[in-house]
């Protein structure tokens, strides 16, 4: 007994041991590794309207922490439509956009960031000052990024920069904050980015030019966000007053005074030029094959000098997505299900010019409409098209992953006076055999369609190429893809510089930048000599299609309600398709066996896109107003 006492009583605090399963606050905020993994969580929670993943909460359409990226939304505007499984056909039948469609109120993320900033300051005593400063800067970047996502959807929102802590007094009204002005939120983003851009780190200066991280925020990421956010503020200031003067609130929560436009344009231009002139990034190009060069500029991960900030995925760490599985062209899919869900529209294809500078409307009929134009090969109609078209989409005759995309909608048989159209009932059908005894035994319907009714085959005659993985088996559910999502790339910064310079009257600066992008796409040098805003909008669309820009560009320029008018006779509201047919006309060597193209409204597309005035600012939900009566409603709410 005594022996026992002597043996064990010596060690002090023997019963006080460190927990193996709990981490204390002091341990978290003093350990750079743990703070970094917390940062990874915050990066992952940045919201976007479209993305590569499939994060939708079944109850209200968004995760409670605001995490929200939904690739299917690519089918909801005019870039494309839904050709996948028919249970999502509602995307082709949106009679109008819901007033809460773009709702975002993710103060849970703002609070987590504020909490982290405050705790690093208070409890991170073992961190050295530069580390602390870098972490704090990075967190402030994430917060600014999130406020940008909020303000572009909701208008001015309350700017909260510290934790709001309830004191259990029974009176919570001190925690209520009114909405800030829309301009104040943009100014907050601007001042935050200016304050932190030189302390963000994440740039390696060992090389010349320095190499910047493209998955963590750094000086150039901050400049890119500033370039975009200031452009948004400027165009809202200018075009809200001009085109939609009723979209304001008395307190300025919505609506930026028109007088502020030029200041914002200048800030955007300065940030764009600083980023472009830094030399850290360069437009990646492939003059021999502009389409491949453009595809790789967005999608290729190794040695990419164009992307500035991405949401990265990595197969080795099992951070993967199904985007390629869901969207690869039907004829070259590697799995036995899915494919072809998003099919790009003819609208997008025709938005890009021909390389000789002529407008990009595809020539399928003679100018007087009397007859078709007969092409030797299905791909010939796309000859000399802007390289970005071939880099963004796959059209009949394109090759991808070593295979040619075989597309044919049917045959047109000449009966002596007119063409009779025959379309197959299944993919890969043959014009011949028992079903068509008069046929020639050659192809009737391509292995990749297009087809009017079959699901998971293109309904528009085009397939997506951007963001589709070229790696073997990446379109299977077993392997999946780790292509990254691009938040910012240099191509956008060039477009931002173009637009800001154009609005400031510096047309030569604007032309320099837009022409560089067109050169990369295969145009000769200085292909544009004059500019209009509409030209900039369509070039921006061609450059940045499917990168979560089209909707926001039309909103900030107040063009959405005049573009998507909900009228089926307005071609801009309707997703159009291009169907290739083979001609059967024996005895007419100039036409027989050639290919013609028919432009139609995509058969599965039902309701024209309809963007109404109340869609410019998403309605604020009633429960938020109930909790905080200081929140004023948005216009038309």
């Amino acid at each position, binding site marked *: 007994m005594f022996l026992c006492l002597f043996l064990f009583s010596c060690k002090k605090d023997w019963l006080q041991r460190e927990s193996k399963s709990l981490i204390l606050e002091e341990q978290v905020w003093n350990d750079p590794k743990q703070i970094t993994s917390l940062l990874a969580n915050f990066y992952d929670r940045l919201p976007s309207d479209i993305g590569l993943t499939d994060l939708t909460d079944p109850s209200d359409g968004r995760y409670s922490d605001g995490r929200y990226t939904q690739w299917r939304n690519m089918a909801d505007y005019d870039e494309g439509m839904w050709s996948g499984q028919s249970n999502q056909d509602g995307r082709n039948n949106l009679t109008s956009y819901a007033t809460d469609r773009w709702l975002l109120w993710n103060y849970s993320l703002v609070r987590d960031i504020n909490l982290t900033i405050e705790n690093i300051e208070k409890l991170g005593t073992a961190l050295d000052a530069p580390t602390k400063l870098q972490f704090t800067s990075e967190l402030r970047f994430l917060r600014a990024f999130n406020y940008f996502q909020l303000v572009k959807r909701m208008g001015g929102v309350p700017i909260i920069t510290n934790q709001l802590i309830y004191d259990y007094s029974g009176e919570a009204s001190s925690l209520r904050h009114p909405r800030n002005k829309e301009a104040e939120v943009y100014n907050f983003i601007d001042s935050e980015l200016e304050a932190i851009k030189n302390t963000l780190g994440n740039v390696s200066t060992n090389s010349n030019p320095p190499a910047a991280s493209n998955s963590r925020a750094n000086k150039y990421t901050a400049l890119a966000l500033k370039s975009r956010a200031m452009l948004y503020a400027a165009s809202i200031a200018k075009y809200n007053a001009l*085109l*939609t*003067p*009723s*979209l304001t609130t008395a307190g300025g929560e919505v609506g930026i005074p028109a007088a502020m436009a030029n200041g914002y344009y200048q800030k955007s231009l300065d940030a764009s030029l600083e980023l472009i002139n830094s030399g850290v990034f360069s437009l990646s190009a492939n003059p021999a094959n502009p389409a491949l060069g453009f595809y790789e500029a967005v999608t290729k991960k190794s040695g990419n000098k164009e992307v500035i900030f991405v949401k990265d995925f990595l197969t080795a760490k099992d951070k993967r997505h199904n985007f390629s599985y869901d969207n690869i062209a039907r004829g070259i899919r590697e799995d036995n299900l899915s494919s072809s869900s998003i099919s790009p529209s003819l609208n997008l294809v025709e938005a890009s010019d021909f390389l000789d500078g002529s407008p990009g409307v595809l020539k399928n009929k003679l100018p007087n409409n009397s007859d078709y134009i007969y092409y030797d090969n299905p791909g010939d109609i796309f000859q000399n098209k802007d390289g970005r078209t071939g880099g963004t989409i796959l059209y009949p005759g394109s090759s991808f992953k070593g295979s040619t995309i075989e597309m044919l909608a049917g045959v047109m048989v000449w009966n002596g006076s007119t063409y009779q159209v025959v379309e197959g009932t299944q993919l890969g059908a043959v014009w011949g055999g028992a079903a068509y005894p008069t046929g020639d035994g050659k192809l009737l319907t391509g292995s990749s369609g297009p087809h009017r009714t079959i699901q998971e085959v293109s309904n528009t005659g085009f397939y997506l190429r951007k963001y589709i993985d070229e790696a073997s088996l990446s379109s299977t559910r077993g392997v999946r893809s780790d292509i990254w999502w691009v938040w910012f790339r240099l191509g956008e910064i060039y477009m931002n510089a173009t637009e800001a310079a154009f609005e400031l009257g510096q047309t030569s600066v604007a032309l320099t930048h837009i022409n560089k992008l067109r050169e990369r796409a295969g145009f000769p040098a200085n292909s544009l000599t004059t500019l209009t805003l509409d030209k900039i909008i369509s070039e921006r669309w061609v450059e940045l299609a499917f990168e979560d820009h089209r909707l926001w560009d039309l909103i900030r320029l107040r063009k959405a*309600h005049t573009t998507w*008018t*909900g*009228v089926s*006779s307005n071609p801009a509201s309707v997703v159009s398709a291009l169907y290739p047919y083979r001609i059967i006309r024996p005895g007419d060597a100039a036409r027989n066996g050639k290919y013609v193209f028919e432009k139609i409204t995509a058969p599965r597309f039902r309701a024209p896109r*309809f963007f*109404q*005035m109340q869609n410019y600012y998403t309605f604020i939900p*009633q429960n938020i*107003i*109930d909790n905080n009566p200081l929140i004023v409603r948005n*216009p*038309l709410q």
Partner: protein
Amino acid sequence: MKYIINCLACLLLVFITGCSKDNKDAPNATINGKVVFENQPLGLRSNGVQLELWQPGYQLFSKIPVHIDQDGTFSAQVYDGSYRLTMLRGSGPWADKTDSIVVDVKGTASIDFPVDPFFVIKNANFVKAGNNINATFNLQRVNTTKNLELVRIYVGQTIITDQTNNAGTAQKAAAVITDLSQPVTLTVPVPSSLSAKDFVFVRVGVKTVGVAELLYSLPVKIAMK
């Protein structure tokens, strides 16, 4: 077994008796009304323009949106009580006004909601001439704070014919309409999709600069045969 039957019997009892308690009756009072200018109802776009109904006196309250039909009428099903009817700012083709109208509802209530439009269409007259429809009408400028942008004629297959639902339109810009004291004429060809029908509906609309919604004449049915 007996236990299960007992349980089921209990559940049945709950189902039978549970409903009547705590359940409120559905709203049984009706507010009917129309949007008027000089006692005349105004034509609008169906599902386009909204009024708001508020019931004060509760801690938490939200509006009851009241959508106006194409002929300027509206109705809402509510409980008896005192409500306030007000405009949704920027929603209709008229000047904003923050005053509200008190509506006391007991069973039914019928109200006229007077507005201050920018332009109204008077004496609209439609004539079929061959394959065209000719419209003649007068524009009256009421509230002069905003300017005329254009006038447009719509032809459609149903009585809901407007900016969004139509088969064919034609328009005249404000620059062409110099004298508002003179009647304005517009001609629209009947589209081929409608030319074989027994009848079509036509109406004209007037758009004010900076206002999204148009103000329309009431739809008129034109016999095609």
